[in-house]
């Protein structure tokens, strides 16, 4: 009973997170703000929903196996999601320049050029 209530809370919390961050991904003005929303969408939402599902596995005959697989999926998502977000941000920073950040990137490039010329 307590597990059911807890699982319900986690599932609905995950649902709220998913919908909110989905709207943020659609409505945020620049790429990096969208990335911020998306990384929450990729870690917190699945974590809440999968843990909520894991609390329900007691009702099934092969519950332990299902629990193990759910945790495996969760670990995999938590491992790859932030890595993919990081790679995305890095690729975006090298390829595309946002309005507010143009100066900074250009100065970095100049610094590196100067360093190389000194070498």
């Amino acid at each position, binding site marked *: 009973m307590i597990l059911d209530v807890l699982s319900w809370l986690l599932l609905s919390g995950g649902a709220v997170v998913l919908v909110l961050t989905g709207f943020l991904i659609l409505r945020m003005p620049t790429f990096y703000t969208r990335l911020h929303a998306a990384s929450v969408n990729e870690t917190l939402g699945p974590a809440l929903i999968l843990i909520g599902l894991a609390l329900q596995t007691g009702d099934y005959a092969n519950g332990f196996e299902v629990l193990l697989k759910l945790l495996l999926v969760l670990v995999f998502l938590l*491992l*790859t999601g932030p*890595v993919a977000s*990081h*790679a995305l941000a*890095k690729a975006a920073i*090298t*390829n*595309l*320049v946002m*309005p507010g950040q*143009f100066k900074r*990137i*250009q100065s970095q*490039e100049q610094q*590196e*050029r100067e360093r*190389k010329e000194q070498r």
Partner: protein
Amino acid sequence: MKHNRILRVPVKSLVPLIMMFGLYVQFHGDYGPGGGFQAGVIFAAAIVLYTLVFGLRRARRAISLRALEITVAVGVLLYGSVGFVTMMLGGHFLGYDRLAHDPLHGQHYGILLIELGVGITVAGVITALFFLFAGRGLRPATRERVEPEEDATLEESFEGAGAVEGTP
């Protein structure tokens, strides 16, 4: 090792796990979803992931194209030879009943072997396809090494070009 450390560390630990998961799919196909084809694809996906993060040349040093050709042929031959053996034992081509005393056990062995053949073939083919397609832009390994000075600037030239490109 200054490039992509954040990418390298998780991928390095993930690749063997993915390969193990591929083997699980391969041998669990009788009981759940999966089988030789899917297992081969997952196994190849692990190698593709390694190649994407650590570079084609390093992956090709580990797995040469010659070895892949042999692997692919071995997979198809394994499948075909199971059929041949069943014929030698007096059954039909690919009639697995003769592989053991109990027909059910024979079926089990037969399915296991041919799924293994399919898995080996598919894994080899997809890895080789990826190596061949991705290697089109690469210089041959036999040529002398490129000038490091020129290549060291390549990455930065991309960044610089991106900055110029992004100007409003």
